[in-house]
């Protein structure tokens, strides 16, 4: 069967790619666009390693088809830093050692950024609930939650 032609915006850039019907957005990002920062941990929407935003909404890119991204705006971990300046969340993750092996980190960062866009002053509980869809097996969640709260405070200018 012929492949689908998809045009979308990824991290602010216009992109186009061809994909099979059954290819997920995750496959397309990684295999067609070379954006390997988005990770595949489970393919069932359980681990959150593949988190991206689509038109501002946080999604597991393993649960969405590539063709569904047509005409949409996708943001991945690769678009988070501005030039050579890390996003406050990225910096705080490093400072708080909120990562160990790092495989879950892009997903956590994308999810956390999405939270702070909606809720610039989240409570700890809110952070924990929002990040409940992202699994980490190395550090536990405490440092991650602290890093998010610290980044939120800095971004608010507190």
């Amino acid at each position, binding site marked *: 069967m012929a492949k689908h032609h998809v045009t979308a915006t990824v991290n602010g850039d216009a992109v186009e790619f061809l994909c*099979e019907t*059954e290819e997920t957005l995750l496959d397309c990002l*990684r295999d067609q666009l*070379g*954006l*390997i*920062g*988005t*990770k*595949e*941990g*489970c*393919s*069932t929407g359980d*681990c959150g*390693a593949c988190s991206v935003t689509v038109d501002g909404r946080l999604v597991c890119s393993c649960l969405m088809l590539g063709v569904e991204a047509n005409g949409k705006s996708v943001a*991945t*971990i*690769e678009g*988070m*830093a501005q030039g050579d300046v*890390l996003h406050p969340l*990225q*910096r705080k*993750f*490093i*400072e*708080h*050692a909120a*990562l*160990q*092996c*790092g*495989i*879950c*980190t*892009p997903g956590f*960062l994308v999810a956390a950024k999405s939270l702070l866009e909606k809720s610039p002053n989240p409570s700890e509980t809110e952070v924990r609930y929002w990040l409940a869809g992202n*699994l*980490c*097996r*190395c550090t536990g969640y405490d440092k991650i939650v602290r890093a998010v709260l610290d980044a939120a405070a800095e971004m608010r200018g507190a």
Partner: protein
Amino acid sequence: MQEKVREPGSEFKWVGTRPDRPDGADKVTGRARFGADLAMAGQIVGKVLRSPHPHARIRSIDTIAAEKLAGVKAVVTAKDFKDQPSEFIPAGEMMINYRDVVRSVMAREKALYEGHPIAAVAATSTAIAKQALKLIKVDYEVLPHVIDVVEAMQPGAPLLDEGMFTAGVEPAPKTPSNVAKRVEFVLGDVAAGFKQADVVVERSFTTKPVHQGYIEPHACIASVSEDGQADLWVTTQGHWIVRAHCARLLGWDISKIRVTASEIGGGFGGKTVVYLEPVALALAKKAGRPVKMVMTREEVFRASGPTSGAHVRVKIGARKDGRIVAAEAELKYQAGAFPGSPVQPGAMCAYAPYDLENVKVVGYDVVTNRPKVAAYRAPGGPISEFAVESVIDEIAGKIGMDPIELRLKNAAKQGTKAAYGPKFGPIGMIATLEAAKAHAHWRTPLGKNQGRGVASGFWFNIGGETAVSLSLNEDGTLALTAGTPDIGGLRASLCMMAAEELGVPMDKIRVAIGDTNSLGYNFLTGGSRSTFSSGMATVEAAREVIKESCKRAAKLWELPEDAVEYKDGAVRPAGPNAGKHNPMTLKEIAGIAGKTGGPIAGYSRINAAGAAPSLATHVCDVEVDPETGRVWVVRYTAIQDAG
């Protein structure tokens, strides 16, 4: 700005601080490349056909239709791997047998678990590879299976290996069974001990074959040139181990294979063995194209090793004064499809935290129709210790003694002879118990529906073969290369140690994990060995750089070598006859390296000795919701004797 914690009065400048990790920026930006993240020109996709049956004899495999499918470039089965003789070799904290590894990588006579690899294909797309798998015809004779450890030990249980006669039993059994091995550790006389007991508690425990659950599935990409030189990129805890296993299974010289360890997305012991790697190499050789193989999460759970599920019986007798007079344990550990559960370390750990006169621990290594178990965070230890510690808490309750006091009365200390053989050196068991007793947690009142448990634990830790290189760059900065995959911050630790020795800032050192061609043999990351062993080698390599730098300055200054010293990042004249020379920094030394003898580098090759066991005491409060049965942890205090 982050907190840079240093202990007051510390003799160290870098060690003990909390610098940004060298791998941090790459990991927060998505740059870090894990097992599935490398692409090679012309790469194709490898997929594995797995047994739908937990136990079946393989009568035949017909791959002709799959091979003929357009887009299929290679198909492999067990025929592509030479059979191996039975021979146990150390692999981390576990032992492996190549006869079993070759069968684990590709089923030969039988499929031994649901998910056991039967064949593999490489094709130009995932869709074609999957279609090709469906075209492979396998004629199975389905056999009865057994997945429970106790049932597997029963007479008449389905036999996984008709040639398996329990080792470690005298006289040797005449009939085969699923029990691969019996181990026993005995101290004193437990029967006599139980006669002195005022209280005896006997309990049985069942544990599940819990999977390590690393977020990154197994993944690799293999490329084999027409001249037989192979490159393998893989997520692993030990790329030298992967190289050795692949060379052995494929019958290639080790020199033909260069393995690069990708960033590793968690392992916890589970990435100390090979699954896809020899298959990817075999497919790549046949196809003449790079082959990338990535397990799905489903494949990880179906076909890679969890820890053992187990059945454990513990019987402990104590006097009213709290002295344990007899301690017995029987451990039945699932090995999965092939022998080699961690029952031996489990048996060794069971009573290791205690100084006891009468101990008997018996362990059984039992095969079942499940994936072969793999190492998992102190393999075997938590299973037996969970059972023992639960019974010790119950004994404390029965004699009305504080459970920490009870443990203190029986704690192992320097000079204690452990049931598994050695006499302990200086260990911190008592210190962890005293710290737990002194901690505010122990005095915190419990709320409604809350309970408190305490447990102590023991693990060995290992050293092993390690090589590290440290090169002085032309501008005086440094390149540090280690060979133990960095699973949790190794690069930061090594960088701090090198900076400490050399007296230079950490950011002057670029640290990397080298491929198998860049260093001598490195044993894998496991057993808490990588910071210990690669750290020791890093310090040695740094001292070699210092020694050589001194030699070069001495040459320039026309002084004997002992008339110069290295201090605060510079070589200086030392002693009364050294004369006046301006100190030479590493930058200046690097500048004269060429004309004083060539590049300066340290290269340490060691078999790190002196790893000490670690002991721990943890206190945990949980709360139960009596309506829903939900249990959650409300307070947890961990006290570690880190060795």
